[in-house]
């Protein structure tokens, strides 16, 4: 089913209730497949681990390689994750988990679209499918870094542009970037779902 030419020209933002219903239905159908549910879960765990363990590489390396017991290794590693440790505030924890979860969903949708439909996103998409996901993942990492320990990641990034102190201007301690990551990932998921519009998933029309 093709879309009217005019609709291609308008910004592809999820502004209508139909857009959100399409996203929800597409996600539900794709994650209803065990393989893609597992892919989403795996990608989410990998994303979350990259966010939190990347903040503490020295400690992670110590937990993995030091001559210590299995229980201590597990305590150290699990203690770096949201809700299991104390490294983040409650808002930052929720946002981090949400970013990781949406990252997993995004990867699963892109994977499904590629394998089952053999098609990429439509031309003219703002940023493209992976473009939104890329922005979301990068912002997620920035948000994790800021929320965890004094804007470390963001300060490092800003320092490349000679404005190292700019990170301290963020009024919410870097949580802003986690929110932006959520927005970017939602947009990415919307664009993937929009790209699958008119097709079928598990025999169901999208």
């Amino acid at each position, binding site marked *: 089913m093709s879309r009217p030419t005019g609709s291609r020209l308008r910004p592809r933002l999820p502004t209508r209730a139909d857009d959100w219903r399409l996203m929800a239905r597409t996600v539900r159908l794709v994650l209803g497949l065990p393989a893609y549910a597992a892919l989403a879960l795996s990608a989410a765990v990998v994303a979350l681990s990259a966010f939190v363990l990347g903040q503490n590489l020295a400690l992670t390396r110590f937990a993995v390689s030091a001559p210590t017991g299995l229980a*201590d290794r597990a305590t150290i590693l699990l203690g770096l994750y949201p809700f299991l440790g104390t490294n983040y505030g409650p808002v930052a924890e929720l946002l981090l988990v949400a970013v990781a979860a949406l990252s997993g969903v995004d990867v699963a949708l892109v994977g499904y679209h590629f394998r089952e439909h053999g098609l990429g996103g439509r031309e003219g998409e703002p940023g493209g499918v992976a473009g939104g996901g890329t922005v979301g993942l990068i912002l997620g990492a920035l948000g994790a870094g800021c929320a965890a320990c*004094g804007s470390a990641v963001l300060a490092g990034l800003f320092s490349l542009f000679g404005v190292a102190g700019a990170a301290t201007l963020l009024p919410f301690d870097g949580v802003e970037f986690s929110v932006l990551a959520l927005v970017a990932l939602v947009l990415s998921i919307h664009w993937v779902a929009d790209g699958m519009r008119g097709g079928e998933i598990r025999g169901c029309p999208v």
Partner: protein
Amino acid sequence: MSHDRPDARTRRRLLGVAAATGASALAGCTGGLSADFPGAGDTEATTATTTGPPLGDHPAAEGIADQARFGPPPADAEGVVVAFEDPSCPRCAAWETGTVPKLRERLGDRVAVVFRSYPVIYPWGRPATQAIEAAFARETGSKATQATTDERSTTTSGPTPYGTRQGSTATWALIRHYFENQDRFDADNVLDLTRAFLAEETDLDADAVVADAEAKAHDDAVQADLAGGDAAGVGRTTPTVFLFRDGEFRTSARGSISFRVVNAALGL
């Protein structure tokens, strides 16, 4: 308009997602890599005071015997936790109010917890740090005898009040005040509020401490902490804690890690 084939375009996009994941990990790593390489900082470590060799020759431990701390002297402690903290840093507040009290309560006779000022987050942290160093200098300079008494008494009596080590009861009270009331401070009011707190809650000469802070009379101590942290790879991340066991460096951690993580990493 692109003339790429759709499948080729899609493969590039998938590669983009993979690259983004890698970039995310890499971005996260920028805060952690330097901690693996003590000495990778831009500035050579300097010390305001030297009281014996640092633990494990680690720059984070330079001169820690002269820092505000809880627990036994570092040279006698099974474990030493050196924390670089900024009074204005929210995660430092979580560390100070969540993890440090548990360290004191459960491992207070075995682990030394050392505070090193490292003001790099919000602007009001810098004058606050000057005030902390000024208060500490006045307390330890005038109360050496009392410090010894305090240390002895806190090892034999019941629950210890917040801050009785190194003769720095008032200094620790000030540190705690900053961490518990971060929302009240900004660069314009921090020293006025500091003066009021010291005058009401401590027996320090509040005006003198604030005057010292304004004049940066103890900036050498601040710079020594900054240089030590820089040399240890702290960068702009607070809190960054360095963990030592039996005089040897074990590992470092970024953020307000929990008591359980510290305990496990120290192997206690």
